[in-house]
């Protein structure tokens, strides 16, 4: 019954990915359910000892950037790509190899498979890119996959080298023009969709970006998955804290349980 207990994990490394992003490599021993791309974990940058959890109090939701086998073969290695924005991520940044953390997961609903698999476009901005990497890796083995990534500067594009290592088409937009096209990543989407057959769009990034992507996809009647962020307390559907509106009179969905990935048409974008 208790199949997904919270677990102690060990920090293997915690290194800069450039541009203010970092990658936390965590080894989790014992059983761990296989995650699907787009799922996340609740991570506390403290060991589950008795002193645990007073600072920061709540665990933080973090996308599973990448999974790997452990050197010993049992358990699993999870990479979390993050940016320091507040207290919780500052404590993550301070963690040294060998220190212990607490992790619950994998959680939530990941990305759906593209309908007919002709082609897929993934579009990401900021730390949202972290949710897309595994999905891009797997998709690129099955269909034509175009990835569009955006950030303020070239350096700030999370995991660019990792994406470059995959066999897919990568286009980049930077707001300062230091790499790729000059401007917003959403500006690349219409022309991309113009040029290729695409059965599914996947987006993760700032709300304004996803709203724009959802609108573009809707105009072309292409199914579109978006991965939503929200403050969370439990991550497992019991606090009802992560609710987002489904539109006038339709109530709410829970980002942690019903998402974080949603078919963009189900959301009440006007209230997001």
């Amino acid at each position, binding site marked *: 019954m*208790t199949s997904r207990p919270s677990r102690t994990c060990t920090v293997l490394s915690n290194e800069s990915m450039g541009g203010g992003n970092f990658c936390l490599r965590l080894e989790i021993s014992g059983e761990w359910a296989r995650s699907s791309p787009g799922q996340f974990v609740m991570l506390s940058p403290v060991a589950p000892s008795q002193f645990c959890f007073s600072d920061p109090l709540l665990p933080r939701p973090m996308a599973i950037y990448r999974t790997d086998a452990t050197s010993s073969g049992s358990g699993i290695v999870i990479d979390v790509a993050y940016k320091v924005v507040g207290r919780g991520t500052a404590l993550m940044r301070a963690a040294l190899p060998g220190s212990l953390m607490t992790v619950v997961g994998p959680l939530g609903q990941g990305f759906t498979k593209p309908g007919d698999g002709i082609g897929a476009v993934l579009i990401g901005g900021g730390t949202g890119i972290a949710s897309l990497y595994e999905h891009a890796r797997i998709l690129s083995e099955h269909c034509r996959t175009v990835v569009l990534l955006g950030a303020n500067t070239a350096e700030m594009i999370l995991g660019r080298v990792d994406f470059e290592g995959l066999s897919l088409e990568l286009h980049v937009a930077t707001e300062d023009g230091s790499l790729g096209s000059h401007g917003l990543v959403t500006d690349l989407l219409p022309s991309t969709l113009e040029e290729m057959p695409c059965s599914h769009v996947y987006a993760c990034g700032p709300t304004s970006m996803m709203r724009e992507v959802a609108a573009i996809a809707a105009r072309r009647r292409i199914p579109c998955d978006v991965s939503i962020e929200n403050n969370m307390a439990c991550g497992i559907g019991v606090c009802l804290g992560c609710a987002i509106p489904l539109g006038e009179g339709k109530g709410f969905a829970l980002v942690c349980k019903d998402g974080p990935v949603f078919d963009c048409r189900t959301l009440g974008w006007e209230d997001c």
Partner: protein
Amino acid sequence: MGRLLMSGTVDAECLMVDFAGLRLRNPVLAASGTFGYGLEMQSYVDLEKIGGFVAKSLTLEPRYGNSPPRIAEVSSGMLNSISLENVGVEAFIRQKLPEVPQEALVIASVFGTEIAHYVEACERLSSEDRVAAIEINASCPHVKSGGIEFGQNAQILGKLVGQVRSSTVGTLLVKLSPNVTDIAEMARVCEAEGADGISVINALQALDVDLKERRSVLWNGLGGLSGPAILPVALRMVWQCFQAVSIPICGIGGISSAEDALKFILCGAQAIQVGTANYLNPCSTEAIVGGLLDYCQENRVGSIQDLVGCLQPPRWKVS
């Protein structure tokens, strides 16, 4: 509504407690609003190993809650304004209750904005065998008094408890609002009106500000403060209630370890509820049961009930 007798050879006798007519496997319950309807927690907690759980508070009809943001973190605590969101009494009985494992003890929680709604919900719930007890959430604004909580006015609270009592067959618990001058007075009113026990405390009314937006961090403005930050206030209130009434007390507020639970027991709590800590670690309740067992064994406590209210008088009273 059945009075369940929990049994099983694996259960440690030293942790068994009698609480308001219920025989609990151990004194560790999960608090309303932090454990869903129990089902959601089954991947993390063996529901048959904890004392039981209080389900998310129910209204007669299903309700949507507030818009986001609904939660925020503060020093050693969190604020929430989930408000009334729940599936409603009927859906709870039809869809949720049947899914809960047989050996799990379920306490239903009820709230409303008018006494009549409470009464009707209690009537409906107390006819259900799987509902071991009903907990009345008195931290709900009483619409007729313009926003004051039921639990903030002794007269309104008395009326609520009295009427709910007559419509509830089994164990009736009342969960007190901490936003009061005199918690003991509220406890006495509950006792006088026939409550079988009281749950102390609900979240403290609070506010935090988003400096950038110059606005409350919560959509709803005010919210409830919970978590370790409120533990010393909750302990004080449990202790004050213990002095005031002889019906059993369920201690709530910031409990995240067996040590915390023991503090409440020493202050007079017969059982305890774990709230926010379920978010911090979904296995908290089971871990606390384990910790209590260790404590009893290490300290040769034959029955944890022997510790209830055993706080020594402060030093100035003995010297």
